């Protein structure tokens, strides 16, 4: 995750509290999604950005995961994400995201 976005996530979390923030990702590959998810939970894995060593433990989901899909208007979802959902490796992304959440997310829900 680039340095700017790390700073944004950090600022927003400080302002609203970790329990009130959910990060939704749109990365195209499981590995990239996992890295971004790791950044907002366990801290920047590259130790280069504002989240280096900062364990926010935020709730984080990918846009193709059922937790997110189930919360939004089905027509809008179909319109905005439907196409990408078809071409992405959804299962792989879900597995990766689940692993990261289980290991690093502070909120058990």
């Amino acid at each position, binding site marked *: 995750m680039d340095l700017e976005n790390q700073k944004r996530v950090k600022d927003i979390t400080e302002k609203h509290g970790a329990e009130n923030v959910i990060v939704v990702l749109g990365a195209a590959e499981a590995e990239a999604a996992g890295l971004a998810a790791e950044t907002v939970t366990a801290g920047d894995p*590259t*130790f280069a950005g504002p989240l280096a060593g900062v364990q926010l433990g935020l709730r984080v989901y990918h846009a193709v995961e059922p937790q997110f899909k189930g919360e939004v208007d089905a027509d809008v979802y179909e319109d905005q994400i439907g196409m990408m959902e078809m071409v992405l490796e959804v299962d792989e992304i879900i597995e990766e995201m689940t692993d990261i959440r289980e290991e690093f997310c502070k909120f058990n829900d």
Partner: protein
Amino acid sequence: MSKIRIVHYINQFFAGIGGEEKADYKPEIREGIVGPGMEFNKKFGDEAEIVATIICGDSYFNENLDEAKAKVIDMVKEYNPDLFIAGPAFNAGRYGVACGTIANAVKEELNIPVLTGMYEENPGADMFKKDVYIMETKNSAAGMRKAIKTMAPFAIKLAKGEEIGGPKEEGYMARGIRKNYFADKRGSARAVDMLINKLNKKKFETEFPMPNFDRVDPNPAIKDITKSKIALVTSGGIVPKGNPDHIESSSASKYGKYDIQGFNDLTSETHETAHGGYDPVYANEDADRVLPVDVLRDLEKEGKIGELHRYFYTTTGNGTAVASSKAFAEEFAKELIADGVEAVILTST
């Protein structure tokens, strides 16, 4: 015992200063840790600590090499560390070269152990793996935790002067050093085991790895060879009779450049071979057998080539290091080009 003192070198990116746009950042030293040093210190526990971090932009380092090197060494000196760590640089080319260069310079000048890490295809790896310990890492910074997990304990070992195991076991890149040891099984048994594994398409590890030579793509074909100037270059050791420059019969440390103007045929009166390691009788009888001046003169007369270059270049290939051969060729290839030579015929023994 007090903690091992370490100075850490990183680039502008890992210091959180910025990416490419900040790559001209001048060397700066900060007390304590910056960026990845955080994870290093965690892994060091009570045994070691990073006392200062030097930050330098990758472009700045590589474009102002001598100045940057001197500056960074001065900075390191100030903290009087027991060990110096650079990177890890993963697959970042300029960062990898900077890490290798500065680690090697610190080792040479301050005489303390040094360590860096990078991806095996980082250009810095080939340049410095023989000089400094380079831990092998993944190709992206996503592998930071993993890299530090192996680098940190190894760093402590180095600083304490403990015995270092082989590259496989410790995770650093092979430095081309062979060390004797007592094996459990004798050579014949090990060879048969390897063969059986090979026949069964199972993994086996050679005990005599071959060096990796790069492959050189041939240049495009010459458009009109009947108008081209052709030169002869040989590793077959042909020299004027008496070997006036004393080119060694093996492991040559030099090459010769000799005039063949007026020679239509090399004879045992005029030329011989300096090359060891093969029966030189036939080359000495008629040096054209190795360096075909006679045939090229014929082709020149028949108009099949433009002309034969006035000088030939020669060395002995026997046991001569690839690095030396490269250095010879780098030098004389410039002369050949300057002399308008368009093609070279390379001959060997």
